[in-house]
């Protein structure tokens, strides 16, 4: 089945328990359908960073105080329009705050040395000052004093942070759209290519099968063609296999049905070709290897072994592919 490093423990469980080695009882610790993550260099297990106890306590404390990064994450989760609304609301809220700060002695906003009072003019000026501060324009025609200074600093910081997030979100949204579109186009082209190539493989195999039946063309020529076709076929099958086992982007069901149907008929024809190879004519190593790869890959395609659950129309094709794989093995 293609495994390269299989070794056999001849003693079996009997030898194991008799030798006094520890053994476990009970059923398998992992759910039956869950595949084991390949334990190879391609997918390294997450390594745990070992830290000294004191250091780890310190990092824990720092981690608990990471409200700054949590705030950034919180901002990141919001939509652009919502963030913009928050930004406006923040500005108005701070404007009201400056206005209220005017009630405290020696505090609030001053225009040309005169303190702004609680009138309507004072409220409008406070809102104006808030917008000037949050956009970091800072004309300087109105000056904060006392507690209003602290508020102005806080407003400038939070305002810039949120406004920056709005801008970056706006830009990255466009980028995400473009990347998704590129992915979609590439994927569709790939599916098209698989279908076309499977058709080509099918017609080649049909020719081979015809020539074998015809018995006019020399066997060497026909089998050389069968060899190369089988190699191309194995490559295509590998792609389909990949598609079914790593469905980050699953093809639409009609497309997948088309691919599987093409695959099944090509495999069927291959089976006929292999049967039609004249007696006494041994399979070349290349052909034998290609057929082995084909049967191994196609054997993995069945309704119960692929990780995703597909519609019944697709599973019928998959099971047929699986059956043919068993026959050509």
């Amino acid at each position, binding site marked *: *089945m*293609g*495994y*390269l*490093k*299989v*070794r*056999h*423990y*001849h*003693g*079996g*469980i*009997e*030898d*194991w*328990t008799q*030798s006094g*080695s*520890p*053994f*476990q*009882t*009970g*059923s*398998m610790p*992992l759910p039956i*359908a869950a*595949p*084991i993550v*390949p*334990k*190879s260099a*391609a997918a390294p*297990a997450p390594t745990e960073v070992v830290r000294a106890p004191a250091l780890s306590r310190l990092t824990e404390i720092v981690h608990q105080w990471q409200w700054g990064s949590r705030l950034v994450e919180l901002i990141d989760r919001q939509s652009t329009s919502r963030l913009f609304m928050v930004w406006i609301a923040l500005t108005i809220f701070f404007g009201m705050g400056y206005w209220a700060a005017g009630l405290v002695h020696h505090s609030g906003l001053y225009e040309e040395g005169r303190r702004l009072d609680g009138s309507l003019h004072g409220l409008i000026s406070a809102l104006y000052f808030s917008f000037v501060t949050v956009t970091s324009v800072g004309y300087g025609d109105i000056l904060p004093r006392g507690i209003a200074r602290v508020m102005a600093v806080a407003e400038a910081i939070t305002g810039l942070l949120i406004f920056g997030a709005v801008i970056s979100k706006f830009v990255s949204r466009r980028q995400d759209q473009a990347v998704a579109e590129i992915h979609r186009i590439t994927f569709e082209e790939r599916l098209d290519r698989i279908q076309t190539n499977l058709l080509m493989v099918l017609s080649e195999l049909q020719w081979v099968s015809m020539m074998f039946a015809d018995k006019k063309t020399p066997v060497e020529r026909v089998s050389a063609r069968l060899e190369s076709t089988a190699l191309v076929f194995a490559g295509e099958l590998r792609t389909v296999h990949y598609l079914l*086992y790593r469905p980050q982007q699953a093809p639409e069901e009609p497309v997948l049905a088309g691919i599987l149907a093409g695959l099944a008929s090509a495999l069927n024809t291959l089976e006929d070709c292999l049967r039609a190879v004249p007696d006494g004519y041994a399979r070349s190593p290349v052909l034998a290897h290609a057929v082995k790869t084909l049967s191994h890959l196609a*054997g*993995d395609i*069945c309704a*119960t*072994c692929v*990780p995703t659950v597909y519609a019944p129309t697709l599973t019928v094709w998959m099971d047929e592919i699986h059956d043919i794989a*068993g026959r050509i093995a």
Partner: protein
Amino acid sequence: MTPEVAQISDEPQVGDISREEIVRRLNDPKLTIVDVLPHESFEAAHIPGAINIPMAEIEERAGTLLPDPAAEIALYCAKFT
């Protein structure tokens, strides 16, 4: 050995593995230990950390449970074979 095991073992880097090596490498994540006995015997006793793929299900499930053909695998069954 049944035909399936013969077929699996019919590969380049095949060999035997001793009990000592398995004991030594029980916690080695690179070595996957596979119990090819039926579920009942697996439940009764198995090597710690082994996974169970009964002989009858090897064809169906080996592909999903052991997707990496380059992984090191140690097979065992009931007794001396």
